[in-house]
Structure formats: structure tokens, C-alpha cells
């Protein structure tokens, strides 16, 4: 088959790990993590539609250590995927391809997603204290 002599780009084993490669696979990983996380969201809404007992059970689980760790992971995954998704949309519009720019926006995405996660949790704990 003629397809055997098509040009290949360097494969993963001989490609130097870089911030950009790491961020690319993280976008995919967070997308998968978020897709799995929708199951929790669906459980929460079904429980709210079912009755007070079901809802309280879900809330208790989400308030436990495991529940909070899951929520922390999902909130960071969401903020990362959202910020990096916007970075993707700029690329799709043909902007931001210069090496320098790709690194700057990459660092920006990591910084902003961490800040948004911290901000969301501070807000949540403040709201709880206010009740």
C-alpha cells in the first residue's frame, strides 16, 4: 500500500516534553474527567426531583471528604478546560500561533484557572458561613 511511505511527524517517545504538549493532553484529560463528572450533576438533579431524602443523601456525599475532593477536582478541571478551550478558539480563529504567544497564553491559562478555582471555593465557603 502506498500509504506506507507517507511522512510521519516525530512520535511521542522521541518528542521532548514541553509545556505545550503537556497542556494539550491535559485539555483532553479534563474533557474526559468533566464528561464523567456530568453523572454527579445528573444524580444531584434527579435527587432534587425525587424528594428531600434522596437530595439530602447526595448533599451529604458531596459534603464528605471524598465528595469535596471530587468537587475540587471537577472545579479545577472545568476552569482549566474553559480557559484552555478559549485558547483553542483563538487558535481556530487563526491567532496566537507564535511560539512565544503559545507559551504566554499557556501560562496565563494555568494561572487564571488556579485563581478561579481558589476564588470559587472562597465564595462557596463565604456563602455557607452567611447561612
Amino acid at each position, binding site marked *: *500500500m*502506498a*500509504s506506507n511511505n*507517507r511522512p510521519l511527524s516525530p512520535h511521542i517517545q522521541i518528542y521532548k516534553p514541553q509545556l505545550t504538549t503537556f497542556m494539550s493532553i491535559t485539555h*483532553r484529560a479534563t*474533557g*474526559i474527567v*468533566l*464528561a464523567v463528572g*456530568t*453523572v454527579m*450533576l*445528573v444524580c444531584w*438533579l*434527579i435527587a*432534587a*426531583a425525587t424528594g*428531600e431524602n434522596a*437530595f*439530602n443523601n447526595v*448533599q451529604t456525599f458531596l*459534603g464528605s471528604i471524598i465528595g469535596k475532593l471530587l468537587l475540587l477536582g471537577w*472545579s479545577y478541571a*472545568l476552569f482549566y478546560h*474553559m480557559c484552555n*478551550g*478559549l485558547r*483553542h*478558539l483563538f487558535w*481556530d480563529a487563526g491567532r496566537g500561533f507564535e511560539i512565544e504567544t503559545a507559551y504566554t497564553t499557556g501560562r496565563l491559562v494555568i494561572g487564571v484557572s488556579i485563581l478561579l478555582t481558589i476564588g*470559587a471555593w472562597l*465564595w*462557596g*465557603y463565604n*456563602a*455557607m458561613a452567611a*447561612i
Partner: protein
Amino acid sequence: MSLRSPLGKVRGLGSAKEGVAHWWAQRMTAVALVPLLIWFVASICAMADAEYNAVRDWIATPMVSIMLVLMTVAVFHHAQLGLQVVLEDYVHTEWRKIASIAIVKFTAIGLAVATIFSIVKIALG
């Protein structure tokens, strides 16, 4: 140089100009999700630890029910399109690829319907 293989040419395989619809839907749902998810996360933060009745009253507000249904459609459409690409990249046995993509699509539709039903049930009391 043509990148099409002789077999591909004989079978008439190649661009059916369909890929762009998938690609475009992934971008459009992404654009829609930015405001929807910022709104949702902000609302959840503001209501952290809220009681059953407070949460139901919030969901039942017409504007909120509408936003939640829109978010549900966008989230599951986007997730399903994205997971399809991931499976196409990594699953190389044809029947496994088709089966896993079908499972993803059925699951997404099932979860979306369950979510929308729950929202509507709460909204209509």
C-alpha cells in the same frame, strides 16, 4: 503529491465535507458553554450548602429552568462530540470503535433526557 491512497481512490473514499459539521458543532457548543457554565458555577457557589427547598425554588424559577435546560443540551452535545474524537483517535478495531462511540452517544442522550426531565418536573411542580 496526493495524500489519498489508491485503495481510497478506488473506493471513492475521501472528504464528504461532513467533518466540518462535527468540528463546527464542537466550537459552537464551546462558545455557548462559556457563559452558561460561568452562570451555573457562580449560582452554585452562591448557594453552597443550601437546603432542599431553597434549591428546588431556585431550579423552578422560569429563567433558571430555561438556562439549565440550555446548559444540559450544550454540555452533553459537546461532551459526546469530544469523546467521539477521543475514541476515534485511540480505538483502532473497527467494531470496538463503532460500539464504544454508540455507547457514548446513547449514554449522553440518556443522561440529557434524565436531567431535562428532572428540571421540568421541579419547574412544573
